[in-house]
């Protein structure tokens, strides 16, 4: 069948319309994708070192960590479940996550599923004025201690 000029223009019209609609849909999707996001929280000051006894594990709510102290120094265990981000609480000598029942040992190891990864360790530091701080955005390995 011979393509007439009218058919050609019509098809071009449909093409333009499709391209424009597709682009507008993509534009909408791009609009919904934010260009700036809330920054990760900075360091949180958590008081002086002598507030935490040797062998203790203390819940620091505003930093969402448990601060521990052993013979080797201070460490912080993230109180965010590695399964889907709920908040495990210390239950006796274990962390229990209320959402889906994951359990972790006192050192963060997984004791029972559904979580498969141990709780993260978070950086603990000492600021110039001698106070301790934790920084959620900096992860450290399980051996890390602030002496």
């Amino acid at each position, binding site marked *: 069948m011979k393509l007439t000029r009218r058919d050609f223009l019509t098809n071009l019209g449909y093409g333009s*319309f499709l391209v424009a609609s597709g682009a507008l849909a993509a*534009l*909408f999707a*791009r*609009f*919904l*994708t*934010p*260009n*700036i996001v809330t920054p990760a929280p900075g360091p949180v000051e958590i008081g002086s070192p002598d507030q935490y006894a040797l062998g203790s594990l203390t819940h620091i709510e505003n930093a969402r960590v448990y601060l521990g102290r052993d013979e080797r120094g201070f460490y912080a265990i993230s109180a965010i479940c590695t399964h889907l981000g709920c908040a495990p609480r210390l239950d006796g000598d274990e962390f229990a996550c209320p959402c889906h029942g994951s359990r972790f040992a006192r050192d963060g190891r997984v004791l029972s599923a559904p979580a498969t990864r141990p709780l993260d360790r978070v950086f603990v530091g000492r600021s110039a004025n001698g106070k301790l701080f934790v920084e959620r955005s900096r992860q450290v390995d399980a051996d890390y201690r602030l002496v």
Partner: protein
Amino acid sequence: MKFWRKEKSILYALHPEKIPASGARLTYTFGLGGIAVLASLVTLLTGVALTFYYVPTPTDAHASIILIQDVVSFGAVMRGLHYWGAQVMVVAVTLHLARVVFTGGYRPPREFNWLIGVALLVITLVWDFTGYVLRWDDGAYWAFLVGTNLLREIPAYGETIYRAIVGDAQIGANALLRFYGWHIFGLTAAGVFGIVYHLWRLRKDGGISRPVLDENETREFISRDELFFREFITSALISAALVFLTLIFPAPIGTAANLDAGVSDVRAPWIFLWVQNLLRVIPPLWAGIIAPMFVLALIIALPFLDRRGPGRAIWFARERWKPQAILVVIAIVLSALSVLEVWR
């Protein structure tokens, strides 16, 4: 099995099978009602998008608009289309009203639809004003302050009405939240319902008004396909025009409202400039409440001033000079007041 059946598509169902060609003539309607509907759809769609970023609190409202305007990808386009869609809607609705008056389209059985139409005009204007307030920039804030304080001028019930609308003893977070609620939900619900009702009633009243036929005349019709075709062309062209309007003239936004800095340049939204002008010369109750109400009452009454002679669906028919003359006077007075307000 056929997946696509045109006669079952909603667009198909929404259009009548055929409409008289005389009523669909471009020089008869100028497509103004349709343009108003299209503009409202554009405004609605972009408005939904804007809600994902807009924060209706005094501290963040202005900053969130700046964010939309400058930082969000295509945010300026989205907001611009919302703004220009709204302006085109106001203009189209007003001109549509004028067209109906000048062609006598309100004649029975369409006089009830006239009232729905006037209600839609009021909704459009309030929609526009509430949207203007949401900017929370310097101009909008003071216009909001003045506009709401006018309510207090109403004798006896002023303070009660003020609180019912503002939600507090003065404007602030509560007021902004309420106007946001009205803007995106209350007025939207009323507007969409009004538009649908207006269109449904149009079909029930026998479609667009048309002249009475002579006995030997036969009526010409255009098909549903032709009607839809024209709608599509108009929509595409108007949409493209809105986009270019947006890109060339970005939607305005001033500096954040600052109560301490005092008033810099307060300007009512352009549709209420004439009220702002009146407020300079006559008492607030008269300028801000009674005068607009009087104009509205006049407009509502226009069909009932018609002598009901011949002249249906004819532009500027002499037999209907009264409503036309009144509308012209209203238009001239309001335009003159607005222009003088801009020039002062």
